[in-house]
């Protein structure tokens, strides 16, 4: 069905521009009112959620005429889903789904972005989204005494993810996670060198076949190992295993948790006690794919009821982004002695993206950094000394941007903060 199934949704768009801003009741002033990086950076209405729907509706009607500008619009979008959250405050219609389908159609039609093609070529060759990655995927774990989940029975599989596995600057997150899990006495393991990419970022880039290929590989390994619970430290991985695998009916009964959820549970159960003071004022950045896009998939089949209203039989349950993972990371931070959490204006379901999603960090790094800079400014405005996130892609983008800007703001993943406290 692809894009066609969303024709009615796209035709519902009234160009009200709500998709450009955070939900209107949440606007607290002139600053930090925008929610969509793409329209904020490129200004033409076509770069907004609504503009994308209007283009999609027109092209379904009049035929697809690809131009360089169209592809610029398509690929300069993090597919962060903020537009849909703001729209769906008032409207009953799909927003991110048709935008995603539009990108998938571009890829299927061979209208790809060369930088993304390169990333996908690497995925096909090495099972990783990190182009040019050298060494073995599980090398970071050498000497840490971690079980091989493919060979030993474990309660929890820790899926490390491509960036954390291969990027020397991010491997600290894997090591911190291991330390925390070991401290709490969790019977966990990894797939080590056998681990493969979740496929989530391939999906964001529009390469569904590659995503499905990865998903099938992963689920085969997981089933073979008898894993019941998977913990991921990466928001992209979380969305892939939890939401996208479910969308394509591949997830089965696998329980998927983000590391922040799992740590919150360990603290709640008394298995992990953050006792050491971490005297610091921090602000928390909700990663898109842990927050609004981490909302569970809802399986629904139905038909539009003919007539004046855009309603369905059975009623369509819209995913409005509010059932993502918002409280557990905050609960973890609040449990750390000495740490003070201060909030930014754009949080939870209407959080501003870090810039890395949708392949933008590969296809247009300058736009990714521009997006990150907006968020860094917002973080600084809270008076925080550090920006805490829960995804290595966010941390990498923020860190690189801060390095360029000369700001003193520090960036941590939540596991690094917990590691300091246990």
């Amino acid at each position, binding site marked *: 069905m692809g894009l066609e199934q969303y024709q009615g949704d796209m035709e519902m768009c009234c160009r009200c*521009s*709500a998709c450009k801003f955070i939900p*209107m009741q949440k606007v607290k002033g002139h600053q930090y009112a925008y929610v969509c990086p793409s329209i904020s950076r490129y200004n033409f209405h076509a770069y907004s959620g609504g503009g994308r729907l209007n283009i999609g509706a027109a092209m379904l009607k009049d035929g697809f005429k690809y*131009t360089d500008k169209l592809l610029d619009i398509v690929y300069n979008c993090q597919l962060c889903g903020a537009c849909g959250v703001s729209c769906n405050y*008032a409207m009953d219609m799909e927003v991110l789904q048709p935008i995603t389908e539009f990108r998938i159609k571009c890829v299927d039609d061979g209208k790809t972005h060369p930088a993304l093609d390169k990333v996908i070529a690497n995925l096909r060759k090495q099972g990783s989204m990190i182009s040019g990655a050298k060494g073995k995927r599980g090398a970071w774990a050498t000497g840490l005494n971690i079980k091989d989940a493919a060979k030993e029975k474990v309660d929890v599989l820790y899926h490390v993810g491509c960036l954390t596995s291969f990027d020397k600057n991010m491997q600290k997150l894997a090591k911190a996670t291991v330390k925390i899990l070991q401290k709490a006495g969790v019977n966990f393991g990894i797939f080590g060198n056998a681990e493969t990419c979740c496929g989530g970022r391939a999906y964001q880039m529009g390469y569904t076949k590659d995503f499905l290929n990865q998903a099938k590989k992963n689920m085969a390994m997981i089933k073979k190992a008898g894993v019941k619970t998977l913990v991921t430290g990466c928001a992209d991985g979380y969305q892939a295993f939890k939401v996208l695998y479910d969308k394509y009916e591949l997830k089965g009964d696998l329980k998927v948790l983000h590391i922040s959820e799992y740590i919150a549970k360990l603290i709640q159960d008394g298995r992990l006690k953050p006792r050491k003071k971490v005297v610091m004022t921090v602000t928390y950045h909700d990663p898109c794919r842990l927050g609004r896009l981490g909302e569970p998939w809802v399986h629904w089949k139905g038909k539009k009821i003919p007539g004046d209203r855009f309603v369905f039989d059975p009623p369509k349950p819209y995913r*409005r982004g509010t059932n993502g993972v918002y409280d557990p990371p905050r609960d973890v931070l609040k449990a750390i002695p000495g740490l003070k959490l201060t909030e930014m204006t754009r949080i939870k379901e209407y959080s501003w993206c870090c810039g890395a999603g949708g392949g933008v960090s590969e296809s247009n790094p300058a736009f990714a950094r521009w997006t990150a800079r907006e968020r860094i400014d917002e973080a600084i405005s809270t008076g925080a000394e550090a920006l805490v996130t829960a995804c290595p892609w966010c941390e990498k983008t923020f860190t690189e941007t801060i390095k360029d800007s000369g700001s003193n703001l520090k960036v941590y993943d939540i596991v690094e903060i917990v590691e300091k406290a246990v």
Partner: protein
Amino acid sequence: MALKKGVYQEFESVVGEENICDDPAIMPSYFNTKFAAIILPGNTAEVQAVIKLCNKHKLVFRPICTGWTGGFPPDIILLDLRRMNRIIEINEKNMYAVVEPYVISSQLQAELFKRGLNFCIKGAGTNCTAMLRGHGHMDQTTSGDDRNHLAIEWVTPEGNIVRTGALGSTDEWFCGDGPGPSLRSILTSAVPPGVTPGVFTKAAVKLYHWPGPSEFPIAGRSPKYVLSEIPPNMMARYYSFPSVEKMWQAEIGLGEAEICYELMGFNAAMVAANITTSNEEDEAMFNRLNKEVQGPGFFVIIAGNSPADFAYKKKVLEKIVEEAEGKSLKTLEDPELEGIIMCQCTRISASIRETFRPGGAFNSIPIMGQRDLTIKWAIGAGEAKKPLIEKGLIVDDGGAFFGWGVEQGHLGKTEIFCKYSPSNPEAKEAVETWQREQSRRAFTERYFASTMGPQDDIGPSLCNYHLWWSKLLKAIDPNGVSPEAGSLV
């Protein structure tokens, strides 16, 4: 019609490569037409330069803000004013704010609330420009239409910069009519085309006292934001009445008493749209409220400056409503729903629910004038909707209209609309026919002369104003490059 390369380059030299586009792929995002180009000017000087080029090359232009209005003819230059998004000044002492076209109402209001101030947000919604002229939910105390525009910076259709009112002789924005030139009759014209040619690049809007909180205490999650508590000295209620006459009696009484912060003549359908989070819920709530109301009604917000002021206003409200045999809608006395609608109708954050959510489109006939007269017309227009409802062409709202007193009832606004699916051409045609017929009926039955009505019929009865307007247009736009502009929604 694509621009010739040289002409395109002239525009590009004004706004820069990033801010002009004539790629056909981008056009449908604005409207299903082929624009000559979309241009994003960043300041007044760029607007002026672009307009001068339009005159030089005889190219028609039209500006937009957030952009849900239109109808655009093909081959025009579209000026998207998105980059002009600064609040220039908030003058608390003289109670005005100066904004550029792409400051949305929500942004300005949030800044004003922090200062104990507010302004008139138009019914189109808080997602639209703060510069928009028109009427809104808070007209009872914030007035409406051109009364809220003070000094204006206007780039004329020929590309001259005109600064009106106080701005014409000083750097102050406090007055639209002097000591500099007053062009109120042209700049804020309510006659067809109903909008001013050229481009407003900055405008001062009048500010009003806000007795409510600096920020509403919002809890919950989208799409159900609720207030964690009703702010002190505030109350929201919906009252229904046994007849239109009784409702009108109460509306006049409340206006004379000057006790309502907001008096919004919602019908049950609009109340239901505000407090519900989906189309299904909306329909069920509408059916429930329809049974609960005894007749037409309105929604009221009381906001006291002190506990004593609040108690006084509440007492007067209850007395006037009682005398008019009004009945409070029990459903809205639930503090959760009271909080939702109080916040929605102050921040004007649910206009999209009221208009677009059910079907995706709506057509409206808005009327400014004497409320009792316009209500009588609206009853007929509502009856004329019923066959369309029965055929399933438009959303069932009971054939209702809505409206409210402006300036404590000194003036009034009445409006009626049909909501329908834009994918259904039959519905669209039926609604447009209804719109034409009811506008014509308003004039032929001598209720009022609608600005949307048949101007060649109406004009001769009103001193041929339409011919004078045409002459004025010709004088200020000799090249005919700005035939229908000022569309600042």
